[in-house]
């Protein structure tokens, strides 16, 4: 059975590291400076994901092992305080320590090369436990489908549930060479995954209101060399798509859908650290979803496909109800699809 075990180090990050081009200015330094910042705001500074930083530090195996011991004992002693709001269990935290070390280190003979100093690892892990800073912000990336995406405070961490929206888009036939849009793209996750499945002429326009999201998405698009396939535009929902009215073959979105009253009770990692702009869907959580449905009437071409993520079950049914009663002339084949946990998570359909 031992052969069946997966490698200690994620092959994902090794592949990406290998694929990384040395000419990319993003990957060589620790700080990325925005080139598009306007005069009245200071330039955004996006920390490069840990796994992409240079191996400019080192540590002995025993020093790393002490870190590991310390981090584990902190995880064990604090887990009880974390799980009450749905936070991670101690075994999940211990898995995160492994992932943190995978991202932060590389072995060179008897010593380990590090992408940050040991002190920083201690600081990061303390933030993880004491401030409940999400693990993905600690390492600056999220593994999502077969991608490793940079993420940063101010940008929603793509969820595993959302991986399915790409499969839904992939099942649609005949639209692979058209123009697609991902509205509220955040880290660019859906846009990038869809762009990689499209045909030679297929393209994706991804929009986001947040300047930080635009910057992170642009970084991720560049890392996957999709500059010719994914265009990022800043603005609210359909606003930046005026030139594409009636031309879209596909429209996907994971809009904010949590009812405002639920924001306070969220798990600390989410409620305290992720942008409410990407979470808060208004009183019923459907404010943005309804706008998206309405906007897709004018922006999708006849036969065009849409897929939206929702808060699940009841909200999906509400959206379907609304679309079939209010806009039955505009759409057909409206369906609800479940996520991997069996929650009715997505609404899909076609423009008539």
């Amino acid at each position, binding site marked *: 059975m031992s052969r069946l075990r*997966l490698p200690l180090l994620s092959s994902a990050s090794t592949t990406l590291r290998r694929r990384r081009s040395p000419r990319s200015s993003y990957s060589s330094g620790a700080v990325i400076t925005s080139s598009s910042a306007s005069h009245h705001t200071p330039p955004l500074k996006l920390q490069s994901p840990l796994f992409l930083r240079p191996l400019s530090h080192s540590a002995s195996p025993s020093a790393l092992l002490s870190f590991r011991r310390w981090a584990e004992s902190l995880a064990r002693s604090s887990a009880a305080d974390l799980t009450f709001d*749905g936070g991670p269990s101690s075994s999940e935290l211990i898995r995160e320590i492994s992932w943190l*070390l995978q991202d932060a280190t590389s072995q060179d003979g008897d010593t380990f090369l590090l992408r940050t100093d040991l002190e920083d690892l201690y600081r990061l892990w303390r933030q993880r436990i004491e401030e409940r800073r999400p693990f993905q912000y600690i390492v600056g990336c999220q593994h999502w489908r077969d991608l490793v995406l940079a993420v940063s405070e101010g940008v929603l961490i793509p969820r595993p549930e959302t991986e399915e929206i790409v499969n839904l888009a992939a099942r649609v036939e005949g639209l692979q060479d058209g123009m697609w849009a991902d509205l509220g793209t955040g880290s660019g996750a859906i846009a990038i995954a869809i762009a990689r499945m499209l045909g030679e002429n297929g393209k994706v326009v991804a929009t986001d209101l947040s300047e930080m999201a635009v910057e992170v998405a642009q970084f991720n698009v560049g890392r996957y060399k999709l500059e010719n396939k994914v265009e990022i535009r800043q603005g609210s929902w359909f606003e930046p798509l005026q030139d594409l009215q009636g031309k879209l073959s596909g429209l996907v979105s994971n809009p904010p*859908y*949590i009812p405002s009253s639920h924001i306070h009770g969220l798990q600390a990692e989410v409620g305290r650290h992720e942008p409410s702009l990407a979470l808060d869907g208004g009183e019923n959580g459907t404010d943005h979803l309804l706008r998206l449905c309405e906007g897709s009437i004018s922006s999708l071409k006849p036969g065009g496909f849409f897929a939206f993520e929702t808060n699940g079950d009841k909200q999906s049914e509400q959206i379907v109800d609304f679309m079939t009663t209010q806009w039955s002339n505009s759409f057909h084949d409206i369906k609800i699809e479940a996520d991997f946990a069996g929650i009715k998570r997505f609404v899909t359909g076609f423009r008539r």
Partner: protein
Amino acid sequence: MLLRSHRKRNFRLMAMIRMPPTWVMRIFDGVYSHRSPPVLGLRRTHQYLTSIRSSSSSSSNGSTATTTAGDYLRQTDEELMNQCEMDTFKSSGPGGQHRNKRESAVRLKHLPTGIIAQAVEDRSQHRNRSAALSRLRTLLALKVRNPIVLDGYKPPLELLQILPAKSTIRGSEAGSQIGPNNPKFAMGMQALLDLLSTVEGSVSTAAKILGLSTGALSRLILSDDSLRAAVNDLRTSKGMRPLK
């Protein structure tokens, strides 16, 4: 120059993956060595893929009773997936944007054989699914036996491909030898186990049929942990001594 050193480092990383010294395992896997899956079996599971299941539902009409391991392995990932029930881990809450949790573990149950393969190591469910699937292929090769007729037996190409070059029955069409890290190794391993089980676990008899010395075939068997374990299980069940 920069590129080269990167490549070298990656090569070293790969080497470490294959044979981790104990202390590396402790740093990456935990002081208390969490080698076993930490999350499986804790939560309710859910059957998935009902919507993807194709109309060619081979598992429902009983025809799979005669399907052999060879046939399973020749299926595409999608076909194999259609014969599986996939369990993932249901969160207690509403999921989606509400949660920050890596519930990415995947367990596949191959319905015709009942074989279960799982993967929890990766951070992405997508990757865990493909890891579980490739594990399932290996397990099918190891656990499902197809009887063969020795009279006029010709080893299939997949088996020839994993034999060392000195085998006298190995023609040039078999190409260079395929090792355990190649995904095609499972097919050859399966054919070798079929042969060994037909000759009642005798390595020397199988070696003769494959044009190899007993020592050379033993070395091939010992080169892969799971193959060695399967051969030794077979030999033990026939009252023979395990290979060492």
